[in-house]
């Protein structure tokens, strides 16, 4: 694959809710090996764009390419097994499963493995490694419902890493998470990035974005209005305009 082919490409993506255009002709690219940020005020269409890209919503118009293939409207589970995965703004974990089981269930198994043991030693080993990375090793036997909100966000993040994805979409990974855990998340993203994973991050914490991400895409009213390095975005008057209104 040529170096120019982006890992994720979105072209003219549009989605309306009633009379409101949540995403309106949105086109953007995520190059392999980057930590790309999407920022923008509330209601600018960031989460809707995530839902369209990951197959949770069907676009009214536009196309999505992942790793050179047209994946528009594909089932989220299929995309997940192909290496495109995401987390949710409100951490979605399986409350009555244990922390370990939450990871194991996300392994992206084929049909044949459905009839293998619930938690095989190899699953447990893999889960233990991820839990250690996220400082959740001590709570692996607890139920997810017994974790704090911040820990649940870590757990959801850890779980989607079970399938060794190529591209991870993080929807506000630090919202509602205390500074110690934010540091854990940041360290982990850097580590995985170093190992070759690409990230696309929606985030309101601009300090976090400026420290970690390049490039930064600014969205407003359903489409990107500026793309650049953190420094360029910070210097751009469009950012203030978008957030505060002109």
């Amino acid at each position: 694959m040529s170096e120019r082919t982006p890992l994720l490409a979105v072209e003219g993506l549009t989605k309306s809710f009633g009379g409101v255009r949540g995403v309106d002709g949105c086109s953007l690219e995520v190059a392999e090996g980057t930590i790309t940020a999407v920022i923008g005020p509330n209601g600018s269409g960031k989460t809707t764009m995530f839902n369209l890209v990951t197959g949770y919503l069907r676009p009214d118009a536009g196309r999505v390419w992942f790793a050179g293939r047209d994946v528009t409207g594909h089932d989220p589970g299929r995309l997940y097994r192909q290496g495109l995965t995401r987390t949710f703004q409100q951490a979605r974990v399986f409350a009555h499963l244990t922390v370990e089981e939450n990871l194991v269930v996300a392994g992206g198994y084929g049909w044949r493995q459905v009839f293998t043991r619930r938690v095989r030693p190899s699953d447990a080993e893999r889960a233990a490694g991820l839990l250690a990375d996220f400082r959740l090793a001590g709570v692996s036997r607890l139920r997810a419902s017994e974790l704090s909100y911040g820990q649940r966000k870590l757990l959801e993040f850890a779980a989607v890493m079970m399938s060794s994805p190529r591209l991870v979409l993080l929807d506000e990974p630090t919202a509602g998470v205390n500074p110690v855990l934010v540091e854990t998340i940041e360290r982990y993203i850097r580590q995985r990035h170093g190992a070759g994973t690409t990230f696309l991050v929606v985030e309101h914490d601009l300090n976090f974005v400026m420290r970690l991400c390049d490039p930064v895409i600014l969205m407003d009213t359903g489409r990107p209005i500026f793309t650049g390095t953190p420094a360029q975005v910070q210097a751009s008057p469009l950012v203030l305009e978008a957030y505060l209104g002109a």
Partner: protein
Amino acid sequence: MRAAGPIRGVVFFGLLLALPAFGLQHWALNMLVFVLMYATMASAWNLIGGFAGYPSLGHAAFFGIGAYAVAIMFSGRPLGSGYGPFLVLPLIGLLGAVIGWPIAAVSMRTRADVFAIVTITFLFVVQTLAFNLHGVTNGSQGMALVPPFPAATFERPFYYVLVGLLALAMGVTVAAMRSKFGLSLASIRADEDKARGIGVHVTGVKVLAFTVSVGITAMVGAVWAYYESFIYPQFAVDPLVTISIVLMTFLGGRATLWGPVLGAFILEGGQQSLAYTLGAINVYLIAYAAVFLAVILLLPRGILPTIQDRLRRRSLRRDAAAAEPPIPAAVVAAQGGAGHE
């Protein structure tokens, strides 16, 4: 710890197999036959209603399909040694599964309460067919297949076959709980959209769970039809059968191995005893309503999960006190007040 489960199973089934040897009265064996029928059906229902969280109200339709299947096969034909209807049970299970598959594929596009309504609609469709397809079912005249067993030991063949079916239902449940199949069902019950998004084969596993569940239910229906000797549409396809198995599973505890069995022993045992002491009046229906209300209000999760939760909390507290340093507590403390909830 790990051996406790198998030991419990061996003791339970050993007791069940030994019971008829104690010279039980006919009424007691008759009662046990019905308890076993309901324990098997509740265990089967639990696969889809408990583990996957899809509350089917249509299971009685498959009970009826099994009953009519065996009646159509053997009614008016010589029964030979009498074991023929038992030998075709696997076939009837397969038939229930084959009919259940498209029903599941269609009805499982809906969820929760809508799913319950769609499945109960299927029940009434089957009941209407049983009343009106005279050429096949003989309509409200019913069908007969009288087992040629001696009166002294009449219940025994049915009893042993039902012990076998209960073992099958519980065996499937254990296999599900210990495999990724059960883990997948649990994730569907908790958050189906999220489960789909992390690559769980949601449609496949829930359709499979439904298919296995109704296949076992159809086999119980066939045994029931043969045991009763005469079947009529209103009893073979009876919403009360559905309601009973749902109620038993809720009472004992959904998504547990022993909950549906416990529920069946309590409710069906209680109902049959009441029928003997009060005569065959429908007082038990009022008792059912009362039990249902009590379960919803006092034990919304059922008997076993409530007990298990108490034990689990106690052991967690003990572990936390023994651990050095207490890890969960430390992490929670490090979290501070950052959590929203």
